């Protein structure tokens, strides 16, 4: 009896201990996680951070000093580049190791190892999109550049030196929550993170929707609704600029340039509006100081930890400051004593789908250039938490991977509907490239010539590189590997059997659109068309709406004596050119006799609205719901068939129709007997807007205010509840310069005033630390939300005195 009691309790205890040490589904190993010695409590930090430290680290060649300022931003001073990048790796890992690990896994399709079977289809998608394939090609090219190879290896060693210094109790919070350990970093991971940027910024496509539309409505209507140049535009390179080169021969449009006329039930990912950015620079002629001022705010999904990591890097041949991508060496957007540079997304069409004609069901060969060609196989191995492994065979053609074929298409994953069947992906991100050299050179650049040289190495994702120098030059270049295409190539699906549909090389780098010191004394970009129709090459047929760009250019045109405040004011501008363009028409069409009391009240409110998307404006909320629903009222019946997914025309086309085509056939809802008019849909959309607000918030009061409706907040990178920010009540919109929306917007705001002593300001919605147990996890969020900026500490020399430097670390070699 006693023995039985003893055995049973012992067994129970054993099971209990094992259960408390094991992760089940999303629940962490409870005792291991809650253990105050090694579990999450140990990640809770006090206010004083990074006290003075001296470390001897194996792998360094000399001595490195890292000076931390009052926001925990590191300022790294090394004697040589090897140590500089080593230290950058080490310090970045100290703050953001989990983010680097997670984003790498996400990019390479290795999440299942950590989160289990629920991520299998997502992982498979990333494998088939060729993310790792592209990263491997990038590494192969990069490693031929000895300087870049050395700095990449040094950066990797630095990260690994940090990882090897950790005991399980030191792991970042999310490793403990998800119950896994950090693994050694490889140069491939840095490449994967750059590919992730490509996926975010240049991984969208429309071709399947366009094909379905073409199939249903024919070429005339398709061209009318989806023109190759917008109704209103304000291109990056000003209209009328003379191109200072002789263009090379542009490929001719093939006679039969459409792949096939079948309708597809496929939904690919489109580039989301809101993923974009602003940048501009005013020359010394427009500024109070007589020197240029440069501003940049890249728009991305906002997360904690932040996408960016602020840093200063100084060695024997460089001293630059700005933001870096954790996991990638160098500074991506920033400045030094002599120059400043920034990026916005071009949005070139560098992703095309090719219809593949296989020989038979074995899919071992495909038809191209009048013969059968062998398909190459790439076996992808996906490890799943819990021990199992599955393999996936991806078919590669000379275009790229066949993302799915009909036999391999799983039924239960919603993203699969996003992937075309028997279609190969040609994507610039698959090509080898050495983009790191561009940033390496920009970090060391001193003048316009250095800037232009740096650009020649850059491939993807294509960016509008803006530039300003203390020598009083400003410039902007939509830049990257831009495929040489015939006009419209890639707007629809392409026939993969015909060589005329391949990319015929690239636009020569020197012919990428560019302008230096224009007459108007400023340069700018906001993801709009890079050029006017006189540019001889084809880059894409559609870009972001012109509203931000136009507002920026209008305000910069009249700006004089510009200073930090005037530039900051423009970054925070909530004015809506869209509202300016369509409000008079919308208001004139509302039949106020047919409004009920609540609607009349709302109509008065929106009629008086000042067209600023400020947090307190109720009119802004009404307008936003009104115009977005109007598009649905017009197009849902014509382009909303769930079996053959299509897309709506651009906002620009809608505006044109609303203003200039009062009798367009499209206003009629073909699903109703009645023949709807423009006035009908405008009124219906208005009522919808008011009704939505009523249902969501009750009677019209301060809850209807735009800030509340928009409900900006910064979620955790892995969407863990409780680990994002609180609700941030601020203004902005997708169509104003200040492009804040719910979870998306300026992931970094920077202003650099060049001159004898460069001065810079910046902020991101987050903090330097990726540790949610740190006071520096989200210490900059409020500043960002209020539209303020922090002055950036920039030390011109290691020993420069600054009362904002609060501690120093010294690393010495073994």
């Amino acid at each position, binding site marked *: 009896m*006693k*023995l039985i*009691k*003893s055995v049973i*309790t*012992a067994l*129970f*205890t054993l099971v*209990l*201990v094992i259960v*408390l*040490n094991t992760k089940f589904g999303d629940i962490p190993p*409870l*005792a*291991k996680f*809650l*253990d*105050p*010695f*090694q*579990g*999450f*409590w*140990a*990640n*809770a*930090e*006090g*206010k004083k951070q990074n006290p003075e430290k001296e470390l001897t680290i194996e792998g360094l060649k000399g001595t490195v000093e890292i000076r931390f300022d009052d926001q925990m931003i590191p300022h790294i001073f090394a004697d040589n580049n090897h140590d500089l990048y080593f230290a950058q790796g080490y310090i970045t890992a100290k703050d953001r190791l989990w983010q680097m690990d997670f984003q790498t896994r996400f990019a390479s399709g290795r999440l299942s190892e950590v989160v289990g079977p629920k991520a299998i289809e997502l992982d498979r998608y990333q494998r088939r999109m060729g993310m790792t394939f592209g990263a491997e090609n990038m590494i192969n090219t990069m490693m031929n550049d000895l300087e870049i190879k050395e700095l990449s290896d040094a950066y990797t060693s630095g990260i690994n030196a940090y990882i090897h210094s950790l005991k*399980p109790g030191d792991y970042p*919070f999310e490793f403990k929550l998800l119950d896994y350990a950090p693994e050694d970093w490889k140069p491939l991971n840095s490449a994967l993170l750059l590919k992730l940027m490509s996926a975010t910024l240049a991984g969208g496509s429309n071709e399947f929707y366009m094909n379905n539309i073409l199939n249903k409505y024919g070429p005339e209507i398709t061209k009318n609704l989806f023109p190759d140049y917008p109704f209103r535009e304000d291109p990056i390179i000003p209209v009328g600029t003379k191109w200072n080169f002789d263009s090379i021969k542009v490929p001719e449009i093939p006679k039969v340039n459409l792949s096939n006329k079948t309708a597809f039930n496929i939904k690919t990912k489109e580039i989301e509006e809101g993923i974009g950015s602003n940048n501009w620079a005013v020359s010394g002629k427009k500024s109070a100081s007589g020197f240029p001022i440069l501003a940049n705010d890249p728009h991305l999904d906002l997360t904690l930890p932040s996408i960016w990591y602020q840093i200063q890097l100084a060695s024997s041949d460089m001293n630059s400051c700005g933001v870096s991508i954790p996991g990638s060496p160098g500074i991506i957007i920033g400045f030094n004593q002599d120059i400043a540079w920034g990026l916005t997304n071009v949005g070139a069409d560098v992703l095309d789908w090719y219809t593949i004609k296989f020989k038979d069901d074995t899919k071992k060969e495909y038809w191209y250039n009048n013969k059968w060609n062998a398909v190459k196989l790439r076996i992808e191995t996906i490890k799943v938490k819990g021990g199992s492994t599955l393999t996936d065979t991806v078919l590669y053609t000379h275009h790229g991977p066949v993302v799915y074929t009909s036999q391999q298409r799983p039924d239960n994953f919603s993203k699969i509907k996003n992937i075309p069947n028997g279609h190969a992906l040609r994507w610039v991100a698959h090509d080898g490239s050495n983009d790191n050299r561009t940033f390496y050179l920009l970090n060391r650049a001193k003048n316009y010539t250095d800037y232009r040289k740096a650009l020649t190495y850059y491939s993807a994702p294509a960016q509008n590189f803006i530039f300003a120098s203390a020598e009083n030059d400003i410039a902007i270049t939509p830049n990257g590997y831009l495929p040489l295409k015939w006009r419209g190539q890639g707007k629809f699906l392409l026939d993969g059997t015909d060589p005329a549909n391949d990319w015929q090389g690239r636009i020569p780098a020197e012919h990428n659109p560019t302008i230096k010191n224009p007459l108007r004394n400023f340069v700018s970009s906001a993801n709009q068309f890079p050029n006017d129709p006189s540019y001889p090459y084809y880059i894409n047929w559609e870009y972001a709406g012109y509203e931000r760009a136009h507002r920026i250019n209008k305000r910069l045109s009249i700006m004089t004596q510009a200073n930090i405040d005037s530039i900051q004011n423009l970054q925070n501008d909530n004015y809506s050119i869209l509202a300016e363009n369509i409000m008079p028409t919308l208001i004139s069409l509302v039949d106020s006799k047919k409004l009920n009391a609540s609607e009349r009240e709302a109509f008065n409110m929106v009629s008086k609205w000042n067209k600023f998307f400020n947090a307190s404006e109720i009119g802004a909320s009404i307008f936003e719901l009104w115009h977005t629903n109007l598009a649905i009222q017009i197009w849902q019946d014509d382009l909303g068939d769930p079996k053959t997914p299509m897309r709506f025309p651009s906002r620009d086309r809608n505006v044109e129709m609303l203003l200039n085509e009062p009798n367009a056939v499209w206003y009629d809802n073909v699903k109703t007997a009645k023949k709807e008019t423009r006035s009908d849909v405008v009124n219906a959309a208005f009522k919808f807007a008011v009704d939505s607000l009523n249902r969501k918030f009750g009677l019209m009061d301060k809850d209807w205010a735009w800030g509340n409706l928009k409900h900006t907040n910064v979620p955790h990178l892995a969407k*863990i*509840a*409780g*680990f994002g920010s609180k609700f941030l009540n601020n203004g902005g919109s997708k169509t104003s310069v200040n492009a804040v929306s719910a979870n998306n917007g300026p992931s970094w705001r920077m202003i650099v005033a060049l001159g004898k002593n460069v001065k810079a300001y910046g902020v991101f919605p987050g903090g330097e630390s990726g540790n*949610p*147990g740190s*006071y520096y*996890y989200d210490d900059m969020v409020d500043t960002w939300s209020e539209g303020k900026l922090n002055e950036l500490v920039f030390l011109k020399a290691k020993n420069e005195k600054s009362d904002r430097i609060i501690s120093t670390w010294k690393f010495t070699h073994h």
Partner: protein
Amino acid sequence: MLFLLIAIISLILQLFLPWWIIAPLAFGLSAWKASSAKNAFGSAFFAIFVVWIVAGLIHTIPNGNILANRVGIMLNLPENSMNWMIVLLLTGIIGGLASGFSALSGFFAKDAIGGKTKIN
């Protein structure tokens, strides 16, 4: 006595060993020193309950309870600046249970093998 033994030794061991060291520790010390099943479970439970809560407090108070509050929200506790206390309580209870049952096992094992205890 058993309470103090488990508390102090576990505190030292946990500085460099994984959490489950408390299990064999409670098992062994209880087999050696526990006077009854109630004494075994009770002393061991409270020893770890106290040690874990105090250790938790040492980490969380300088942190302004930021992290523990976030964990509370993640665990579906209502958003409240006090929910860190519930997380801390949970910590104490889970540690205590592991320790308590280990101690109970130790006592019954000794008892089954025929050690000097009062049978209750």
